[in-house]
């Protein structure tokens, strides 16, 4: 006889997660009176067809706003409906943190996006005084989170994740499905939506007249398998569980295993030194820094990681905390490199009455394998690596100063190139057009030139730039570049580019902004934009 305790899964449904988070963020923004009820408000997302409602407060629901509705429709029902942007990414991040917190009730917890959690509570309920007390504890603690009513949570416990989910969303409050109960019989009154199916599958089932779980299960039993075959045939192409009611039903009953993907917390690498005697001078601080960098290297080496961002916290005797942050171009754990970069950042630290604790934390780390140690002599001989060189440059000159040009899909010359961090991967781009000559260098801002021409839309003959007169000897053009109408105003003028060479052989790239008589302003201006080699 097996002594394993029966599997117990708890599902927690945070029914109003988005609204609860909005309420808490509003309170964080400014102290609102505690007793004030929520206004009729909807959280919206911008879609291609206009703003769409994601969630609404109780007052908003009462006024007629529904999730999934267009905001314009809701406004006709309730003209004074307030709106706020919804934050799905923030909700998901919050849910991840909540999943870690929920491990207080069980050793494993999994996300059930967008607004639920699953906790494996096999054989732990007695620690909380039974399953009923456990569910009460969940609701109480969720309601106490963050104040302002906290989070509204509904929890249920069942032998499978599917059954627990169904009971949490559609069952009575604090429902428990005991291991000896027949799940199909207990859940037969729940709607088919309790099967975690996609909306289009639910629509199909409703058109078939199947509204309750019991009906779906009943079809199977009535005709000894023939009914199941019929449903199987209808959904035979649907491999994903969310699109196939039979798979979902089997998961609910426990005939098909449903693995949970647990959330595991990975605390960032952290090393610290508490100092016996507060330090007030730079030299001992450098020594502590060197020790910390060594510790950090060992810590990261053990994890097989390298730091991309390091945060150095200096706790002063009077309670102040000075934080210095450093980002690297590539993952590293070289102590000498870290010390060298931090040295530039520690110059302006005010030690006050002394620093009593120093902590170094790698808040962003990436996998980094072990490499051959760079001996000092070898570094002197062979020079630094590219990543180390870029780090040194960007620490002294700033992130914005060290960049790499990448192509961008645009015809406007100055938009056709963008700048990104030097070691970031190049974005995918189409092959560049090669039939137009482009100048070697582009001025940051095209400079206005005074041009002499024979006819307004003809070749330039002579121009004055930076106080010097240039005689145009040879010219090629125009290359006409129209404004990007989908982005710019309708009054933007087109550009006619000319490649020219002056009497001394200097080659420039100039353009005329607009045409004579194009109805978008007076006489067109001329600009010099590029210098050819």
């Amino acid at each position, binding site marked *: 006889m097996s002594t394993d305790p029966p599997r117990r899964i708890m599902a927690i449904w945070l029914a109003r997660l988005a609204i609860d988070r909005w309420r808490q963020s509003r309170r964080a923004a400014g102290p609102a009176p505690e007793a004030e009820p929520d206004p009729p408000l909807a959280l919206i997302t911008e879609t291609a067809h206009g703003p769409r409602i994601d969630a609404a407060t109780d007052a908003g629901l009462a006024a007629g706003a529904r999730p999934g509705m267009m905001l314009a429709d809701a406004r006709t029902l309730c003209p004074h409906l307030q709106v706020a942007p919804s934050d799905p990414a923030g909700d998901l991040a919050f849910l991840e943190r909540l999943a870690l917190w929920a491990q207080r009730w069980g050793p494993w917890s999994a996300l059930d996006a967008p607004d639920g959690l699953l906790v494996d509570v096999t054989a732990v309920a007695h620690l909380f005084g039974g399953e009923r007390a456990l569910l009460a504890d969940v609701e109480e603690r969720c309601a106490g989170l963050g104040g302002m009513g906290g989070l509204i949570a509904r929890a249920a416990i069942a032998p499978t994740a599917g059954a627990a989910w169904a009971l949490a969303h559609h069952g009575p409050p604090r429902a428990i499905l005991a291991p000896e109960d027949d799940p199909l019989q207990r859940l037969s009154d729940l709607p088919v939506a309790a099967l975690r199916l996609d909306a289009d599958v639910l629509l199909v089932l409703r058109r078939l007249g199947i509204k309750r779980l019991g009906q779906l299960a009943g079809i199977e039993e009535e005709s000894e398998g023939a009914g199941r075959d019929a449903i199987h045939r209808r959904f035979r192409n649907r491999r994903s569980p969310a699109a196939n009611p039979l798979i979902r039903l089997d998961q609910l009953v426990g005939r098909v295993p449903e693995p949970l993907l647990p959330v595991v917390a990975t605390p960032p690498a952290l090393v610290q030194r508490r100092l016996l005697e507060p330090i007030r001078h730079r030299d001992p601080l450098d020594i502590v820094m060197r020790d910390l960098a060594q510790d950090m290297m060992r810590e990261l080496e053990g994890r097989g990681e390298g730091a991309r961002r390091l945060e150095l916290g200096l706790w002063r005797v009077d309670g102040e905390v000075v934080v210095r942050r450093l980002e690297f171009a590539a993952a590293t754990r070289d102590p000498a490199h870290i010390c060298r970069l931090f040295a530039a950042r520690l110059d302006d630290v005010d030690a006050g009455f002394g620093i009593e604790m120093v902590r170094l934390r790698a808040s962003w780390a990436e996998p980094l394998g072990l490499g051959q140690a760079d001996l000092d002599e070898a570094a002197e001989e*062979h*020079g*630094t*690596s*590219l990543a*180390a*060189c*870029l780090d*040194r*440059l960007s620490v*002294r*000159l700033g992130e*914005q*100063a*060290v*960049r*790499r*040009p*990448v*192509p961008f899909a645009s015809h406007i*010359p100055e938009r*056709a*190139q963008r*700048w990104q961090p*030097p070691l970031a991967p*190049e974005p995918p781009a189409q092959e*560049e057009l090669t039939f137009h*000559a*482009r*100048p*070697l*260098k*582009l*001025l*940051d801002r095209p400079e206005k030139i005074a041009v002499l021409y024979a006819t307004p839309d003809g070749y330039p003959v002579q121009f004055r*730039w*930076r106080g*010097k007169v240039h005689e145009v*000897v*040879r*010219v*090629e053009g125009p290359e006409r570049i129209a404004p990007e109408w989908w982005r710019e105003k309708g009054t933007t003028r087109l550009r006619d580019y000319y*490649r*020219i*060479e002056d009497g*001394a*052989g*200097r*080659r420039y790239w100039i353009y005329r902004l607009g045409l004579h008589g194009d109805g978008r302003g007076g006489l067109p201006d001329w600009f010099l934009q*590029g*210098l*050819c*080699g």
Partner: protein
Amino acid sequence: MDPSTFPTTGEPPALAPDALVGAAVSARRWRPGLKSHPLHSEIFAPGGEGSGGALALALALDMLRVEAEAAEEEARSGRSPKSREVLEQRSVLWVQDRAALRLTGRPYRPGLPPMLRRRLIHVAAETPEDTLFALEEGVRCRDLACVIGEIAGNPKALDFTASRRLTLTAERHNVPLFLVRLDAAPDLSSARMRWRVQAAASPPPLWNAAAPGPESWQAELFRARAHPPGTWTLREEGDTLHALAASGEGKVAADTHIRSA
């Protein structure tokens, strides 16, 4: 005297003493595609044209091509430390100070030579001091193919000591440095080669004689350790740098162009 300035041809001289001097001079004359290249060059250019940066790029490309060919030869003989692919993926660091940026603008990727488009890293430094720091860090980096710098005028920070420092670092780590000096007077410097460049009228292109042709520059080598001074019209044609002796100069080399092979 620097022994490297002597002709290095292994053939016994079978010529009259007069001709010998001439041959020695012409052997020492600079031409594109030379195997031994100096690691610190200075290029003086006017600020109102793109010739300085363009010549620096052309010289850098010429040097990179020679390097790549040498690597290929070594690979063929089976004792190659670096493959050609590795060499051709190394980045090029281009450092500009703020005044140079304002004078001649930023490098424009679609206008760069195709083999450099993916490899350029640009550094916009505020002051000449920052520029010199960036140049030195770049020259010290083993993963860079070369470093190009642009500094406008004669800043105080760029004195003989600073240029000597750059030369020594470049020669120690074997990373070539091309320093473009815009609107600058040729002051004291330890650069191994010093050029003065300005734009030259381009030859007419093949199809449209009225259009500007391939880029050409009038380059004067006015100080070099290993070469006698001279003036050339330089031009990139196809994949090679061509040098035409300037007219009016009574020297022999009519078209001492690279790679006679």
